[in-house]
């Protein structure tokens, strides 16, 4: 089995897709904004996977396209962003977590950040729930919540792009979005507007099965067992005969794609993030 840490090797498919970045977009950093004397409405916390993992980078760009499309002024931290410390904390390294957290809080407070949208449920959970105890208080939302909000406000629709009408889509609840923070409806709302056929897996919402990546499992070999968790999960997803398995977490993305590959279903079943689906449906 391929070492989990080497996600680049597993997910290096970006180059094969069509060039969808024809519309060049500038991504402002907080430093640039500050030098122009501007303050964005929201900070987009990209996260490590979103920054470095090729598959997740695509999702990152799609989140930017959505923000750009609806005209929200946003910025990223760029090279000033650093790991939230989530995997360190889950693995028991509280020292490292707090070092990361305090350094990040210094940067965030330096830019007087109030509102943050993340591209990852783990960053979302850590920034939202675990930074306040260390003095970092921000209004943090996950990108699926932002999409839901934009849909509810009528600023975002599903038009002008790829049609998902009638397509079978099943949504995999990320643990740190669903059980961890009780966000079940937001990602589903993003799918409902597609006029697609939403099918739930047997284990969904608060009963959803983990993809196997959480708790720093992403960065280690699984312990001895009968099978890998992502295989168990993808078997369940495939039972719904989906055309799309929807994800909302870069780690789930890796695990689910590995699972689909394991069953040689890459051509029939695509694993797409909520942001990618939204961007595609709007032709962004």
């Amino acid at each position: 089995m391929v070492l989990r840490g080497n996600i680049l090797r597993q997910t290096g498919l970006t180059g094969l897709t069509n060039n969808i970045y024809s519309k060049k977009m500038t991504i402002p950093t907080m430093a640039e904004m500050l030098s122009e004397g501007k303050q964005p409405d929201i900070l987009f916390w990209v996260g490590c996977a979103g920054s470095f993992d090729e598959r997740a980078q695509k999702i990152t760009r799609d989140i930017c396209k959505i923000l750009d499309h609806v005209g929200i002024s946003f910025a990223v931290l760029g090279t000033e962003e650093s790991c939230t410390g989530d995997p360190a904390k889950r693995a028991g390294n509280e020292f490292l977590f707090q070092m990361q957290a305090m350094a990040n809080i210094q940067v965030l407070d330096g830019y007087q950040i109030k509102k943050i949208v993340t591209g990852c449920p783990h960053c979302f959970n850590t920034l939202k729930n675990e930074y306040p105890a260390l003095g970092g208080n921000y209004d943090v939302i996950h990108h699926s919540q932002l999409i839901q909000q934009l849909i509810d406000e009528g600023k975002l629709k599903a038009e002008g792009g790829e049609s998902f009408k009638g397509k079978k889509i099943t949504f995999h609840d990320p643990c740190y979005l669903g059980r961890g923070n009780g966000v079940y409806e937001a990602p589903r709302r993003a799918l409902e507007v597609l006029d697609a056929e939403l099918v739930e897996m047997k284990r969904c919402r608060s009963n959803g099965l983990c993809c196997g990546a959480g708790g720093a499992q992403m960065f280690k070999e699984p312990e001895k067992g009968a099978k890998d968790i992502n295989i168990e999960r993808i078997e369940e997803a495939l039972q719904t005969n989906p055309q799309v398995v929807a994800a909302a977490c870069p780690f789930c993305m890796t695990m689910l794609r590995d699972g689909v590959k394991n069953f040689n279903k890459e051509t029939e079943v695509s694993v797409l993030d909520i942001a990618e689906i939204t961007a595609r449906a709007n032709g962004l």
Partner: protein
Amino acid sequence: MIGQIIFLLVTIAAIGLFTYNARKIVRNIKLGKPLDRSDRRADRWATMARVALGQSKMVVRPVPGILHILVYAGFVIINIEVLEIAIDGLFGTHRIFSFLGGFYGFLIGAFEWLALAVWISCAVFLIRRNIVKVKRFWAREMTSWPRSDANYILFAEILLMSAFLLMNSADHKLQLEGATHYLKAGAFPVSSWLSPLLPSSESSLVLLERICWWFHIVGIFAFLNYLPYSKHFHIILAFPNTYFSKLNPKGEFDDMQSVTNEVKAMLDPSFTPVTSAEPVRFGAKDATDLTWKNLMDAYTCTECGRCTSVCPANITGKLLSPRKIMMDTRDRITEIGKNIDKHGKDHRDGKALLDDYILREEIWACTTCNACTDACPVNIDPLNIIVELRRYAVMEESQAAASLNSMFGNIENNGAPWKYSPADRLNWANQ
């Protein structure tokens, strides 16, 4: 008169022994580290009302959930009858509450229907455990004692309900025959079915009624005193345990103030932390390193295995079972308690929760997905114990898998769990 004295002595002995054993459990729970759960009292009462009293998480699985509600309701409500039995026993009266008249009839009738429901539910539970062999009752940690423990309780409840119904049946027959001392009171919708099976002579009926009466009440006292030795202690601890539930989002792990002090001192040399006299241990190696809430969780666990049956690690054949984490924690703190009783407060037996009970392979199989904490009908948190053990392994021993250590190194040096240069962090924007 002799009966009354015996009853009084049995009652005092039963309550005394129970108090003695229950206090030991309280003492053991207090061996845990402090944790403040005195906030948000309204939310806490509401959680207890919903989860413990209202059994809201039990009915997620409707069949055992509804059967459990029947047993629970039966247990709680039939205890009103036990109050009458106790008064009758002490004062030599018979059916002291019968002055309630029609309402008394309604009560006794309702108790009988409940007793029948409890009887049937317990029988179904026994079938589920021993004949259908529901998977979660036969997992690796369900060795002979935990399985027997459950069966003893179910048998005991069936016997108690049988005695209650048989007692009523004999009483009813005696009432109809106009026996002295057996005043006409109550309604017997269920026990009257047993009437054809009973002897006809008055003396036999009186004997039967008295045997069942004594068996029922002594049985209840025995049951009460079995509780502290059994997983069945949950009938008491479910209430405080849900009251003291973690109310923060499940995804939020607790903040380690002891680490904050060290980190602040590292970042700012002028920072002087409030030092405690005792050297702090980061994380947990033994059960006494856990908080009192972790230990209360352990004594509250009734080994239903709902946590384990939803655990992704366990489902895919890994060694981890959240239920075993709780059982191990309880067994270890009980062992520590026994050592204190035998050898005094400072005795060390050289054993620890980590390694002697819970293996590293178990704690490192956890995905921290919170399926276990979500599934637990009494809000037990096995995940917190797993993380505490990890904290000890990582921060005190530096014992983590090499791949995790390199992840730590990458975060420390590159600000990302992978080996990428922080300077490349924005490269995605230029592609």
